[in-house]
Structures are given as structure tokens and as C-alpha cells.
């Protein structure tokens, strides 16, 4: 198996406005291509597009727009974790030798069909994610004595981090009290506890270890991958747990030969505030009972270890692009290129991306 490294990255700004999917794709892919050394379009032999958009044949369209004639091109959809699924597919192509260099581009428009899973009949007419988000939040409060303030700290922290992320949809600060006093969507969810669907695009170039040095002075290796799908129906989840994350994390740590405590920086899937608390527990960084305290300590000490780019809540959530932007953040952190967001001496980073209330999770470990 060939080793695989990230050699280039590019993004567009995320926005609440509707976006033109093809334009956005081209913009982030073009930024990505311009970030590498010695670029030659003939070197890219794979182009993958991750999106929930209904447009067809985007892999080939993006290739033609960029003047690339790849061996492999297609789209990948897996709801909110489409982006990491596309990166992991590219990894598989390169590690198997089917490909040497793959461009992965994720894109979404703010109104997209990936926000509701119509197939899930167990949700009845309560299809929108706010309903499962409310169930997870209420259950976390009940089982682990999580407070309203601890949940608000997740959002205040991530909004604060997003202020230093030029690609975030909003750079507005939100205090703990602003979050706590924001509009109640349900008894257990405030508007500022929710990530927001955005338009935006992000792209990443992956290459085999052999080729990586040609294109980048600081290639970042993907050393661990773990994935798990437990179901598609939210109602089959055990409340208070994200089993798919726990299993995927274990697989990723084994592959990377690391333990959770070695992780210096992580992007986790905070679809709602409670999801960050649950994710850091399932990843083994803390326990559910102590997760609120863990995040409070990060906030009080201005430690950006979790969600330095602002997470989904702070940066916005263009579904097909989210996992790629998370991966770009960890790549930049390990390259020491995160400016004000930089975690000092970051050596090992983690990306956690999930779909449909955590019924599936994808995790990657990167190392510099």
C-alpha cells in the first residue's frame, strides 16, 4: 500500500446566500491548484466531487473546466460527511496504485437536499435535524447533568475561533449570554446552538508519498482512517451515545498507532452544541460527564485544541465541503500555517465528520 499525503488546499468563503455550485467548485479547485509547486494538469489522474447537490456529472464537468483529463472522475454523496468520504475514497485510489494524484472538491449551495433524510420514515413529519438535535441535547442534560451554560460555551468558543477564520460565514463574536439568550427553537435548542447550512466549496490535492515532495515542501501524511455506519434511521441510535464515532475512532487510532491523548488538535462535527460534547467523549479525549468542564477549560484558557477554525457552528456547514474544510484546517495546523488560530507545536491532528445524527462517522488522523 502506498502512503498518501495532502499536498495542496483551497477554499472559498462560506455564505448564507445561495451559491452557484459550478462557480464555487472551480474557485476552490483553482485556489487549491495554485497552492502546489510544479503543477502540471497531466499529473492529476483522479477528480472526485463531494456534494448533496442534484447536479449531474460534476466530476467530469470540474475536470473539463480545469483542463484535466483524469483516469477516474465521479461524485460522492454521504450527507454531512460526504467530504471525508471523498477524501478517503481518494486515499484508497492512491494507496492501491490505481491513481497517483487526486483532486477532491466539495461543494454545496445553502439550500440543498441533504438537510433532510426523507427515507427515514421513523422521523414521521419531524424530519428536520432540530428534532433529533433536541433529543440528543435533552438526553445529555438528563444523563450527564450537562448545563445550559456548558452547551452555550461550545457555541461561544466556536464563534470566537471563527472570528480568525477568513472563510467562515460570519466573523461575529457571540458571548455565552448571547448564546443563552438567543432564540429558542425548541425547549432544548437555541438558534446559536445550531450549525447553519451554507454555500461554499473546499478542495484538497492528495498524492502518493513518492510524488508528494514534488508538489509540496510540507506534505502532510494521512496515517489513520476509521469509518463506521450503524444505521440510517436516527431512531435506532442509543440516546446519549454516538456508537459510530466510538468504533471509527478506535479503528483510526489502531491504524495510526496512536492513543487519543496524543492528539494535539481536532476538528469535530458540532452540528449542534451537544454533538461536540458527545464527539470529544466518544473520541476518548474526555468523558461525557466531564465534557462540559473540558470545553469550559478550553474556553477559559483560550486553548483552541477543539475546532480551531470555528467548527460547523462558527464557520458554517456547506455539507459536501465541510469534511474537506475540516481536513484543510488540520493540514494547515500541522504545517504551522494557521496564523492566529495556530496551536503551538501541533504534530498529530484528527478530523471527525458524521452524518444523520451520528448514524455514520468518518475519522482521519494526520501527522506532520
Amino acid at each position, binding site marked *: 500500500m502506498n502512503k498518501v499525503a495532502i499536498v495542496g488546499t483551497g477554499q472559498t468563503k462560506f455564505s448564507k446566500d445561495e451559491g452557484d455550485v459550478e462557480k464555487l467548485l472551480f474557485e476552490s479547485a483553482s485556489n487549491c491548484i495554485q497552492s502546489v509547486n510544479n503543477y502540471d494538469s497531466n499529473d492529476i489522474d483522479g477528480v472526485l466531487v463531494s456534494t448533496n447537490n442534484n447536479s449531474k456529472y460534476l466530476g467530469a464537468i470540474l475536470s473539463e473546466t480545469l483542463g484535466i483529463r483524469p483516469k477516474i472522475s465521479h461524485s460522492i454523496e454521504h450527507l454531512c460527511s460526504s467530504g471525508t468520504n471523498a477524501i478517503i475514497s481518494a486515499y484508497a485510489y492512491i494507496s492501491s496504485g490505481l491513481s497517483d494524484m487526486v483532486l477532491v472538491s466539495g461543494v454545496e449551495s445553502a439550500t440543498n437536499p441533504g438537510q433532510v433524510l*426523507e*427515507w*427515514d*420514515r*421513523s*422521523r*414521521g*413529519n*419531524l*424530519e428536520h435535524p*432540530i*428534532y*433529533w438535535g*433536541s*433529543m440528543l*441535547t*435533552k*438526553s445529555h442534560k*438528563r444523563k450527564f447533568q450537562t448545563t445550559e451554560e456548558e452547551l452555550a460555551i461550545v457555541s461561544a468558543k466556536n464563534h470566537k475561533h471563527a472570528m480568525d477564520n477568513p472563510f467562515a460565514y460570519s466573523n461575529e463574536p457571540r458571548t455565552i449570554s448571547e448564546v443563552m439568550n438567543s432564540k429558542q*427553537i*425548541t*425547549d*432544548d*435548542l437555541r438558534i446559536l446552538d445550531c450549525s447553519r447550512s451554507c454555500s461554499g466549496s473546499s478542495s484538497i490535492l492528495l498524492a502518493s508519498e513518492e510524488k508528494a515532495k514534488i508538489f509540496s515542501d510540507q506534505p502532510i501524511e494521512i496515517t489513520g482512517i476509521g469509518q463506521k455506519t450503524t444505521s440510517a*434511521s*436516527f*431512531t*435506532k441510535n442509543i*440516546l446519549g451515545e454516538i456508537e459510530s464515532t466510538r468504533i471509527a475512532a478506535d479503528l483510526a487510532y489502531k491504524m495510526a498507532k496512536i492513543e487519543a491523548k496524543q492528539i494535539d488538535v481536532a476538528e469535530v462535527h458540532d452540528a449542534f452544541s451537544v454533538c461536540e460534547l458527545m464527539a470529544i467523549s466518544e473520541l476518548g479525549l474526555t468523558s461525557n460527564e466531564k465534557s462540559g468542564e473540558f470545553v469550559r477549560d478550553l474556553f477559559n484558557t483560550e486553548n483552541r485544541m477543539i475546532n480551531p477554525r470555528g467548527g460547523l457552528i462558527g464557520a458554517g456547514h456547506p455539507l459536501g465541503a465541510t469534511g474537506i474544510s475540516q481536513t484543510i484546517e488540520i493540514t494547515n495546523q500541522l504545517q504551522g500555517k494557521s496564523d492566529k488560530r495556530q496551536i503551538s507545536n501541533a504534530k498529530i491532528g484528527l478530523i471527525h465528520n458524521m452524518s444523520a445524527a451520528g448514524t455514520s462517522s468518518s475519522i482521519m488522523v494526520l501527522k506532520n
Partner: protein
Amino acid sequence: MTFFEDQLKEGVFQICYCKNCNDTIWPPKEICHKCHNRTDWKKSTNLGKIMEFSKRESTYFGLIEIDDGIRVLGDILSSSIPEIGQSVRMSVSFNSKPHYSFLVENN
């Protein structure tokens, strides 16, 4: 419309099961995922228990467990704050999507 949806429209929640494996199949499917024989149907008792709940505007909603461990999301009709484990009675309908609602017993 599927048989399941058609029956919801009639106010009946049909539970799909496999006679062979004695297994409930949820969401309903025509073929059992274990033995691949055709599945059968039985009517729900319409009785359930509240697993978790919250409230949107003036309406409670929650995760309810009905027959054979099947769980669904639906509205909860209750004049007081619901409780975990509380018994509820289900009524169903279908209008482009399923609608499940639950009346707290002895309300």
C-alpha cells in the same frame, strides 16, 4: 404509495415482520434482510412509552418506543409535562409523509 403508507392513511400502523426469523423489520421491507423470504404484517397495539421528549412552541414531541422495540418521532399530546417511561397511545396518518402522534394515557 406503499402498503405501509396506505395503511397509515387509514389510521393503521402496520408492523412488518418475518414469520421465518420471528424478527421485526423496521423500516418495513417486502423481503426479510436475513432469510430473504417475503415478510408479513400485523397491526400495532398502538401502545408505547416515552423515551425522550422536548417541546416546540406549545407542542411536546419526543422519541417513543412502540411494539417490538420500534422507535419513532412524533407529537405528544399532554396537558402536563410528560415523563420518561410514561405510557402513550398512538394515532397515525399520512399526508405526503407519516405523522405519528401520542396521547399520554390517563391524561
